[in-house]
């Protein structure tokens, strides 16, 4: 296992880059593990990594039906931030932010954390008030936040539309300077490499088709390549949570929806931060390769199809031009979609389930990527200790029975509205 550094790079260069070794092994499955994690995306791999690193549990397998990182980890718009207002969310996402800030060194893998800041634009006095409340909650919890008026936003982002033609004038913005972007694929690969070097088996091209039972208790998984026994089975399958839960007889407060992402052709640096439009569901940043990465609203109807429709393409590009008129002549290079596990209050689950031996990590809506490290960290804690950490204490399934809805937007039990 090579330690990555500028020196190792030079050394390999001099030997014609022919001596690199695998970033992670391609092992045979053992018959049994302490923990089998279903889903080799960022969350599953992070869970495996922290199980090994923080809890010394290394007899772990990550079972992935395709190739690791091939799901939403490789399809999102790479934004990381910790600007959540509701108790139950705020400190969880801040833990994630703090793990991000140390992740490249921790993994010895450059996941390219770029803390270029994020603006949430406000387009009415009411939105400014809501932003102020959010900002105050962040500051009171030790998270950086600033509230800017129109003039300050204009000074910082002069290329937005401040003309009287703008349908929704910019009144101001709430800004988090520690927010930014990370290289999504690198996150999966870095965690995979980190977990692998601590002994975790990553089993790709292996689909979970059912569970092994020991009475009423889950005792492992049935896969396309045979059985794997496990003391604990942990689901990290995002949009496919409902499907895998159903195999265990659970109905979840989750609907699977399609979220699209867009990238333009590469251009020289144009936008050096992350901007969220307040008048429509739209946000943008520019990748290091130069492509403007755009995110929009859900396609609104339940879908597992991993392909989006034209209405949201039109809607997203219209938002882009409304926010930044110069984007009109730039060109859309590619648009794609991921399947989102939208929960009934827009907040996730990191919890034991009513089924003994089965643990659930899901309901990420479209906040999954930024949560990756804390999600893995808290899920590992919950699996190892059979009890939640305080940062994920509220991410339970039964919160709806109690009425503890963690609803950042206040839209109620309508998954496609979060």
């Amino acid at each position: 296992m090579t330690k990555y550094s500028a020196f190792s790079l030079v050394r390999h260069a001099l030997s014609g880059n022919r001596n690199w070794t695998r970033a992670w092994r391609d092992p045979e499955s053992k018959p049994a593990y302490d923990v089998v994690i279903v889903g080799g995306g960022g969350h599953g791999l992070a869970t495996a990594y922290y199980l090994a690193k923080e809890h010394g549990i290394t007899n772990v397998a990550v079972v992935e039906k395709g190739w690791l990182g091939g799901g939403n980890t490789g399809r999102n718009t790479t934004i990381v931030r910790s600007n959540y207002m509701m108790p139950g969310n705020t400190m969880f996402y801040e833990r994630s932010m703090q793990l991000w800030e140390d992740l490249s060194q921790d993994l010895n893998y450059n996941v390219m954390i770029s803390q270029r800041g994020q603006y949430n634009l406000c387009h009415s006095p009411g939105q400014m008030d809501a932003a102020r409340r959010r900002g105050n909650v962040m500051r009171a919890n030790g998270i950086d936040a600033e509230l800017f008026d129109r003039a300050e936003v204009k000074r910082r982002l002069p290329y937005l539309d401040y003309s009287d033609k703008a349908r929704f004038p910019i009144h101001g913005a709430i800004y988090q300077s520690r927010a930014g972007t990370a290289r999504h694929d690198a996150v999966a690969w870095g965690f995979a490499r980190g977990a692998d070097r601590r002994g975790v088996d990553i089993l790709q091209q292996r689909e979970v088709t059912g569970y092994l039972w020991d009475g009423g208790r889950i005792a492992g998984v049935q896969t396309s390549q045979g059985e794997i026994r496990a003391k604990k089975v942990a689901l990290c399958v995002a949009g496919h949570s409902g499907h895998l839960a159903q195999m265990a007889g659970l109905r979840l407060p989750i609907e699977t929806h399609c979220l699209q992402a867009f990238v333009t052709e590469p251009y020289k640096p144009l936008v050096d931060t992350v901007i969220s439009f307040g008048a429509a569901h739209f946000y943008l940043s520019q990748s290091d390769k130069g492509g403007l990465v755009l995110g929009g609203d859900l396609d609104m109807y339940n879908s597992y199809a991993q392909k989006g429709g034209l209405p949201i393409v039109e809607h997203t590009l219209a938002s882009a031009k409304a926010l930044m008129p110069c984007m009109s002549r730039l060109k859309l290079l590619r648009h794609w979609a991921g399947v989102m596990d939208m929960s009934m209050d827009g907040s996730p689950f990191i919890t034991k389930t009513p089924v003994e031996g089965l643990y659930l990590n899901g309901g990420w809506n479209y906040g999954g990527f930024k949560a990756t490290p804390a999600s893995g960290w808290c899920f590992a804690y919950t699996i190892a200790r059979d009890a939640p950490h305080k940062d994920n204490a509220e991410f339970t399934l039964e919160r709806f029975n109690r009425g503890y809805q963690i609803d950042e937007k206040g839209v109620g039990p309508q998954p496609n509205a979060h």
Partner: protein
Amino acid sequence: MIRIDCPVCGLRDETEFTYGADASVTRPAMEDTGMQHWVDYVFNRDNPRGWHREYWHHVQGCRQWLVLERNTLTHQIGTCHLARDADLAVKEAAK
């Protein structure tokens, strides 16, 4: 672009409609005071991979609520009825 054959207005683009929700869950009777019934109705979903019964509202047309069968893997469209006739239609299909 999903296209929905509204029984009143004809075949129209999804943009004329708003998506309702899962139409397979039944709203408990007003008199029903069973907490779990309401929790299941409001929060819990089968969320199937494949055929899905769902509500759509033709807001830019006849303003009728429809019950549509749609495949969540392929976006293929199945039957479509006015919500007010939907149970009837299902019963007939069962015959």
